């Protein structure tokens, strides 16, 4: 239950101390401005300077900025005590807040009713996600390939070795913590499941050929069961039908997210969990034209019609491949 990490307590303390010093600074400023404002009367400049000097240090009364030294000590002590108590109260409150939290699932998930969908490579231009490149110019597509390789490095066999092989086509419910160190098992997802788009056989993901592979990822939501028993699948369409219909190849077959990757039990229960992916290979992209593509994840419980959220249940991007 040591959710309240040392880091955060450290933050609180520094916040308290920082706050204290800022506040004492403010205090001096306030006193200063109060007096300065009071000095602002019709007086000559030298008189004002004289008054100001007297305010900063008054030799007659031994007052430094309107207070004697001992008085400053007292007021500082008071504020130190006040802020210590306040920081303490706040830390206590945060601590008890942490105690009430479930370490595995957040109390509320009402903001995550439907998962977001993202695209890899995620390169953004002026108008959002943009895959613009020249097939014959290596420099123009190399960044996409690097991004994909980097992204898929989390899915190589060594990275996935801690996860188990799952074959069932059903939700992988786990009631108890059977995994090592009181965790739950996560299913393996290795890049080779993406076949032609795994980057293993074709390390350029088809970019120079003008048939690029793009990867669709669905955001994790704890205990979310997509598809209601049927595996959700990715479906990409061109926004406008000016061009010939898209010819696509999905990997794994049918572009589905296998149900055994769901539900997700959270970072604490499944520390090695990795999102299942779907790769889309675009086979007939019209050259030298901008094509807007929308890839939706289709399945019960996944909505993609939220007018405010362009990434809920779908991802939209533009492609232009030049010769």
């Amino acid at each position: 239950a040591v959710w309240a990490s040392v880091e955060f307590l450290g933050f609180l303390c520094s916040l308290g101390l920082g706050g204290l010093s800022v506040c004492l600074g403010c205090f001096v400023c306030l006193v200063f401005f109060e007096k300065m404002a009071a000095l602002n009367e019709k007086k000559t400049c030298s008189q004002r300077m004289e008054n100001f000097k007297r305010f900063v240090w008054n030799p007659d009364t031994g007052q430094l900025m309107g207070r004697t030294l001992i008085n400053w000590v007292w007021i500082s002590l008071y504020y130190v005590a006040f802020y210590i108590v306040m920081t303490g109260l706040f830390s206590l409150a945060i601590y008890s807040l942490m105690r009430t939290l479930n370490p595995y699932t957040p109390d509320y998930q009402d903001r995550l009713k439907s998962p977001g969908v993202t695209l890899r490579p995620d390169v953004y231009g002026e108008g959002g996600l943009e895959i613009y490149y020249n097939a014959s110019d290596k420099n123009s597509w190399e960044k996409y390939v690097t991004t994909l390789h980097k992204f898929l490095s989390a899915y190589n066999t060594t990275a996935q070795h801690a996860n188990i092989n799952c074959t069932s086509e059903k939700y992988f419910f786990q009631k108890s913590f059977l995994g090592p160190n009181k965790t739950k098992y996560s299913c393996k997802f290795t890049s080779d499941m993406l076949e032609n788009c795994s980057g293993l056989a074709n390390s350029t993901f088809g970019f120079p050929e003008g048939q690029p592979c793009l990867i669709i990822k669905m955001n994790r939501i704890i205990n979310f069961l997509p598809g209601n028993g049927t595996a959700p699948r990715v479906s990409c369409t061109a926004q406008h039908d000016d061009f010939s219909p898209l010819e696509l190849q999905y990997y794994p077959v049918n572009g589905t997210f296998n149900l055994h990757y769901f539900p997700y039990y959270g970072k604490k229960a499944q520390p090695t969990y990795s999102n299942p992916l779907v790769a889309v290979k675009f086979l007939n992209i019209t050259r030298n034209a901008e094509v807007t593509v929308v890839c939706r994840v289709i399945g019960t419980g996944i909505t993609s019609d939220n007018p405010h959220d362009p990434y809920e249940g779908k991802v939209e991007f533009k492609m232009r491949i030049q010769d």
Partner: protein
Amino acid sequence: MESLSPMFGPDLNFPRGLTSARAAEILARDGPNALTPPKSTPEIIKFLKQMVGGFSILLWVGALLCWIAFGIQVAQGVASAFDNLYLGVVLALVVILTGIFAYYQEAKSTNIMASFSKMIPQQALVIRDGEKREVSAEQLVVGDMVEIKGGDRIPADIRLIFAQGCKVDNSSLTGESEPQSRSCDFTHENPLETKNIAFYSTTCLEGTATGMVINTGDQTIIGRIASLASGVGNEKTPIAIEIEHFVHIVAGVAVSIGVLFFIIAVSMKYKVLDSIIFLIGIIVANVPEGLLATVTVSLSLTAKRMAKKNCLVKNLEAVETLGSTSIICSDKTGTLTQNRMTVAHLWFDDQIYSADTSEEQTTQSFDQSSQSWAALSKVVTLCNRAEFKPGQENVPIMKRVVVGDASETALLKFAEVILGDVMGIRKRNRKLAEIPFNSTNKFQLSIHETEDPNDKRFLMVMKGAPERILERCSTIMINGEEQPLDRERAEAFQTAYMELGGLGERVLGFCHLYLPEDEFPDTYPFDTDSMNFPTSNLCFVGLLSMIDPPRSTVPDAVSKCRSAGIKVIMVTGDHPITAKAIAKSVGIISANSETVEDIAKRLNVPVEQVNKEDARAAVINGMELKDMTTEQLDEILINHSEIVFARTSPQQKLIIVEGCQRQDAVVAVTGDGVNDSPALKKADIGIAMGIAGSDAAKNAADMILLDDNFASIVTGVEEGRLIFDNLKKTIAYTLTKNIAELCPFLIYIIASVPLPIGTITILFIDLGTDIIPSVALAYEKAESDIMNRRPRHKKKDRLVNEQLAVYSYLQIGIIQSIGAFLAYFTVYAEQGWLPNTLLGLRVNWEDDYYNDIEDSYGQEWTRYQRTYLQWTGYTAFFVSITIQQVADLIIRKTRRNSIFQQGLLRNKVIWVGIVSQIAIALILSYGLGSVTALNFTPLRVQYWFVAMPYAILIWVYDEIRKLFIRQYPGSWWDKNMYY
């Protein structure tokens, strides 16, 4: 005279006057005979002025900064740039709307005022082309011959060439209430003192006169005084100075925190442009947007309340000025006194009786059983030419309109009150002959039949200057019996006469004589010219003395001013003796204090030998004042607590006011005449009389007493002090949450957490939930008797002092911030974002292209999902501030007393405020939660209670603070914690 003669023609008594052509010529040269109205500021200037006061400037600067930030952000392509634009627009709107409101308020009072000055066009009887004609007074020119008679207003400055029993009332010019006689004789070098000049705007009380116009329009004495007033600059009101001081503090704090965090931001490697945006954001966050509106509304509420108590405030800020007043320079006539002669004392049977002089008298309670009184009352009733205007039977006697001079009116009313039906008595005692009062014989007599049918004697009654009357008497009536007037009796008379005269009263002597039946039979032809009847060896009946008595409410009001630490100085044009008598009777000079002269008289030593510091009171004559240096005047103002200035000129009034202001006093001046207007203008707050006041006085004043009653000033002072206290509370209340609005931004910069509260949300607090509660504080009752403490020191007791700012900003404000942050962290934590995850998250969080950020539980969030959560955070922060502002509102009800002493339910408006606050929050969260532009979301019910413990903490902490302040007055705690 020689230069005048061509116009008179052969006979001086039948002047021909100017020719019409010549008059028209002069009129064209000199302009109409009217006072140039004071330059009224154009309405648009007045309106614009409302928008550039101290506070408004702060808001304008804030708006400007917002637009600058908007410009920068638009250039950068930041999506949220429009927030700044809107904020700037809202700030500007606040200033404009508040300006309109204040302008409307003041315009309303001006309208009420304007309704007073319905001037009836004045007519003058002028001789032109050798014939008399009525012309409008405006057409008069220098050299015109005019005729005036009793009841007329003098149409211009006039040198008299013929006068018969002419008396004028110069009170509007000099403040002197005594009628002045006027003749053709040149009696004094000083035009104000000489008897042969009658002044514009004064009234002729009786007699007739003919004179030549010597000055018209602005050249007249009154015109010159009026222009003196327009030359006096308007001082800043104390509240304006206080608000300026407050703005300085707020601006200073804002700029220094802004710069501090600018440096921090730059050293944290933020881009400089971003840091500038932060700087602007911090400065703008410090601007209390709602305060301008709140202060204006509070002031106008008080102004309204004062208007109900007959103080009409012309200038909203003057509402508070009255509260900080430390010296009131009051005019005597009309303000302290009733401005009508009333019988105050009687002397008969060798004894002085006091009469009731209150405004509402219906009976007189002195001993009326003596036969002497019966005789005296008969003389008073019969030897009197004043009459009630008919048709006033249902009007209270004191309010009836009388034709006749002031003394006769007083006597008539006095008789009417005691005897009733004076007119009937006069009818039954038919008047046979009469000699009216004139200045040579100084008496008035009349001869009557008696109402007793069996008594065939005639009764001769006479009244006049007491010494003249006594000369004509050989007997005196004691207990209804005639007794010889020996030396002893004469001395008793002298003592009584001196005593009454010493009270500043006008004394009249009364005597009578029953004419023997045998010498004066029924048919005796009385002839007033040859005086064929005895006018000596009469029987002295008694003395009556009259005074313009103080208003009955005044002594009480003066003593209240005393206990409120306000010095009341009487400044009058009247005689020192009368002034002193009135001062004594109203308590301006208290019963046991003496002037230097009094001490000298008591000790029987010359005035020079008296130690001046022994004398608390001082009566200064205008002539003495003329020879005084400023130091001497200062000395008098400092050394004497009870001062009366008599026979002062308008310029001297100005000097006195300036003298008081040199002592750092806030000076209120009351007055009604044109002569008062320069002083009214010079004063920190000029108070004019609504009924008796001249237009010039009303124009120069900041406040108008609708009932002309000095006592209304005291209520005004009370209201003024209360609003000062309550404004303090309002400001403390408003400033507190500023910290809770600023801290999120600072933490956002330093700890890079998602923004806890947005600009629009802050505006909904400042201009939404907090407005009604802060106005409600204006309805708070005083904590203790505010009329029992000294007026605040202009330079020491500030509206916003160090303690207030520090306590609000650094203590309560901090508690509030902590409470609100707890709610913020709770909302995020329960949605999966634990506090430690939030630290340093800002850049990713705000990245529109980062749509799968992991929370603490491993879930991934899109940008919009995060934004919605951020708005939920805003709402939670907003709700927490609102909840804690409820606690803040309750603690601000008092500054020293416990809330339980003050009573939680006494101020109902506070509860309206609290309910409105919560209702607005509910509507914003649940009603408008779906309007995305407002950044509110429907909040889970439990989040409303997260900050509750901190709200309670605020209350408890403040109760402890107040407890220690009460327990240990003067202690370190008291000095540092009492604001």
